[in-house]
């Protein structure tokens, strides 16, 4: 008995039709083999659109459905569910994209319509060879892995733990908090950063549902959604976490001093160190690269002074494996190193600082005890704050870093507040982007404090004076685009608001977790608007600035979103796994074992008794490596069978009949009444809102 196929061609409001003549495509489909009905409709994804399919399945006895509309990545599930509701197996459905791949990108309407016909013919051909398939249900492990414990990772871990699920929180640094731990005040409220983040950090340490692993990294991930295994490497701390009381005596006695990363190179730390007294955990680590004892020299000072005998030079690296159901990545950002931008003299002039260095200058436990001073220890009389360094710049990062305007304003205020109102503060900006809640109000407040705004991107910072006033100063040379002239502004200190950028190890991390990076190299979300926390890999979610520049409120909201997504899977406890795995037909397999070597998942075993290869469906991901190679054609990926692809090809390449004559071209044509503009789809008066892109 032949199949009964229904074809549905969407207008997507005006997104597909009239560029692609949807009624014409629907009419064309009715002449294709086994097609019982071809319809077009304004919004196929709307309820009436779906009902139309359901009704036809039930009334016309359709056993196959084809929808030509937007990308299947958007609405394949919607239509599969409609089929399911009508009692049709969702795999007896095929979707073809005539919007993103056709109407939106083709200039000529006739060509677009012709391409759409080819695509519909291919889909109709293919759907004939679809089989009923059934998803497999798998248990979801209730535990969650959170990677990175900046404010985003902390928020996600706390949300998940509070819901009663166990979290493994892995942080690569010796303590948690990320960048926020380096700040003193936060815009726009000027809350003290420690006051708002320390309670959260302490909550992480005290939460029984959180297994916090600092100074650790995830080395390897295997498995699939609901059933991942992560191998975690715990670097040796050389300090016994149980015995250490965090008294800090060792930090004073250690004789080795090196520049501190946490202080952005402005202060020194010892070989045994912790970032700050508020660090969580507040127990130090020994930097094995500089410690005298660990490098075979005589020392052992910390061991000698430690009152609790916590120093252990013999500690070894440990690896442990955890089972988890879902993963939240919260690995954060880095700031751009401005050294290569020679024109700003960073590294050459003492008083050219980065934003993060200025944060440390402000911090009560920073290198100056919170005093804003120049390298020589005296306060500045004038400061230039240079916005967008490396952001919105084709030579560096095209994107806007979204926080620099705001932290620049924060600095304006802090300078006026801490050093005095006589200090002249000059902002060099391109545009002021104060878009968040309370941000515009903050700008107004800072403007009222008597700060100067110069619109222009400085060309250079120089110490070559031209006038007596410039003598001994840093001169910022810039165009003032509002005045249309070049300005030279002598200052004592310049702060570079450098761009936020992805961490240097982002490519490796992306690979390890099976996700992609975007053009900007931040981790790529599943959909820029509707899937900002999920990724192309099921069960892996993104939180915070690893996905793109964000301020703290946005990073925290994003993290709570990721937590909710991870919890949705964990709480439900089971997940449907796609049945589109490989299958090896034992009647055809010749037992050559070629597929076994090709399988990247070790999902194929050899049955010695039957002398054939057998796919383990639980491990197969359906990549098709085996099927593309199998010399006998025994290995086939379900839903992507050779027959399906061959017929899809045939449909795609078959000539389509000439487009019927349209109204505009031939007014006398008998088709005039049915011209594309006039044809009214059934029930087109319903006012749905388009879900375009």
């Amino acid at each position, binding site marked *: 008995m032949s199949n009964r196929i229904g074809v549905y061609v969407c207008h997507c409001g005006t997104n597909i039709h009239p560029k692609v003549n949807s009624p014409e495509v629907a009419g064309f489909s009715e002449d294709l083999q086994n097609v019982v009905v071809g319809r077009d409709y304004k919004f196929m994804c709307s309820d009436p659109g779906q009902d139309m399919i359901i009704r036809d399945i039930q009334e016309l006895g359709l056993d196959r459905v084809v929808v030509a509309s937007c990308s299947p990545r958007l609405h394949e599930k919607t239509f599969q569910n409609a089929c399911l509701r009508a009692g049709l197996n969702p795999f007896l459905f095929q979707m073809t994209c005539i919007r993103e791949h056709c109407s939106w990108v083709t200039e000529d309407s006739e060509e677009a319509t012709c391409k759409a016909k080819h695509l519909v013919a291919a889909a109709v051909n293919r759907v004939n060879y679809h089989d009923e398939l059934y998803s497999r249900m798998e248990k979801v492990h209730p535990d969650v892995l959170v990677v990175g414990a900046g404010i985003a990772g902390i928020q996600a871990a706390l949300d998940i733990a509070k819901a009663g699920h166990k979290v493994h929180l892995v942080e690569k640094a010796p303590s948690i908090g990320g960048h926020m731990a380096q700040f003193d005040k936060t815009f726009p409220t000027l809350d003290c950063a420690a006051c708002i983040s320390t309670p959260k950090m302490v909550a992480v340490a005290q939460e029984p549902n959180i297994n916090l692993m600092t100074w650790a990294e995830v080395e390897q991930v295997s498995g699939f959604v609901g059933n991942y295994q992560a191998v975690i490497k715990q670097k040796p701390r050389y300090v016994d976490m149980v015995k250490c009381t965090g008294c800090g005596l060792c930090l004073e006695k250690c004789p080795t001093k090196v520049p501190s990363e946490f202080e952005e190179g402005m202060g020194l730390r010892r070989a045994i160190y912790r970032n700050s007294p508020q660090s969580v955990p507040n127990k130090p680590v020994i930097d094995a690269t500089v410690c005298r004892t660990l490098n075979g020299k005589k020392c052992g000072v910390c061991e000698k002074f430690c009152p609790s005998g916590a120093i252990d030079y013999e500690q070894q690296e440990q690896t442990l494996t955890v089972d988890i159901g879902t993963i939240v990545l919260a690995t954060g950002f880095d700031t751009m190193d401005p050294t290569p931008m020679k024109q700003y003299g960073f590294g050459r002039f003492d008083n050219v600082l980065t934003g993060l260095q200025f944060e440390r200058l402000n911090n009560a436990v920073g290198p100056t005890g919170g005093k804003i001073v120049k390298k020589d220890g005296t306060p500045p009389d004038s400061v230039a704050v240079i916005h967008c360094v490396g952001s919105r710049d084709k030579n560096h990062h095209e994107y806007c870093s979204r926080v620099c305007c705001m932290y620049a304003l924060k600095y304006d205020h802090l300078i006026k507040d801490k050093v005095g109102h006589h200090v002249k503060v000059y902002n060099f900006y391109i545009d002021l982007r104060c878009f968040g809640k309370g941000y515009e109000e903050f700008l107004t407040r800072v403007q009222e404090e008597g700060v100067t705004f110069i619109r222009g991107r400085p060309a250079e910072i120089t110490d070559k004076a031209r006038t007596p006033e410039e003598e001994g100063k840093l001169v910022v040379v810039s165009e003032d685009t509002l005045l249309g002239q070049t300005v030279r502004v002598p200052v004592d200190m310049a702060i570079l608001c450098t761009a936020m950028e992805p961490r240097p190890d982002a490519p490796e991390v992306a690979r390890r977790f099976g996700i992609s990076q975007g053009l900007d190299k931040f981790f790529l979300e599943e959909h820029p608007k509707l899937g900002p926390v999920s990724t192309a890999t099921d069960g892996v979610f993104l939180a915070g600035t690893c996905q793109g520049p964000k301020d703290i409120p946005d990073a925290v909201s994003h993290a709570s979103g990721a937590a909710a997504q991870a919890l949705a899977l964990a709480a439900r406890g089971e997940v449907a796994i796609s049945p589109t795995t490989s299958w090896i037909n034992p009647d055809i397999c010749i037992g050559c074992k070629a597929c076994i070597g090709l399988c990247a998942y070790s999902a194929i075993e050899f049955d010695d008794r039957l002398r054939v290869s057998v796919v383990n469906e639980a491990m197969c991901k359906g990549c098709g490596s085996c099927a593309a190679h199998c010399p006998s054609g025994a290995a086939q990926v379900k839903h992507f069978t050779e027959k399906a692809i061959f017929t899809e*090809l*045939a449909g795609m390449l078959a000539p389509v009949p000439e487009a019927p004559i349209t109204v505009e071209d031939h007014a006398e044509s008998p088709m005039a009444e049915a011209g594309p503009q006039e044809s009214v789809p059934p029930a087109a008066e319903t006012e749905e809102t388009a879900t375009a892109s």
Partner: protein
Amino acid sequence: MSEFEPTIVAFVCNWCTYTAADLAGTARMVQSPNVRLIRMMCTGMVDPKYVIKALLSGADAVLVSGCHPGDCHYINGNYKARRRIKLLTEILTGFGFDERRLKLTWVGASEGNEFAETVNKMVEDIKELGPGEATAIEVM
């Protein structure tokens, strides 16, 4: 005489190039309508038979496109594809096909512009090259 309009079949990986094609669409990057996409789960799934079949059934060229080396959603399917396409190109040229009729590219999920450029460039190249050699093969 109207210009020769080639037909090109593209086997593209769902995770990267298909997504890039969606992105190119969303950004309304105009493309020649000559390229028609077949969505595969991975380039490693593209059986050389499919390419041959396409060329023999009237396609003037075939594009295979997937994730960048190292980025394959299935660990290393694209490496397998790279080897297969290399061998297949040798076979096809042996049968008189111009090697430009089979192209393998890596277009990542965020590279909509790259996808549009690849499509337009390939259509241009094949227009220059003229219709496929398949008819001659059929005679053999």
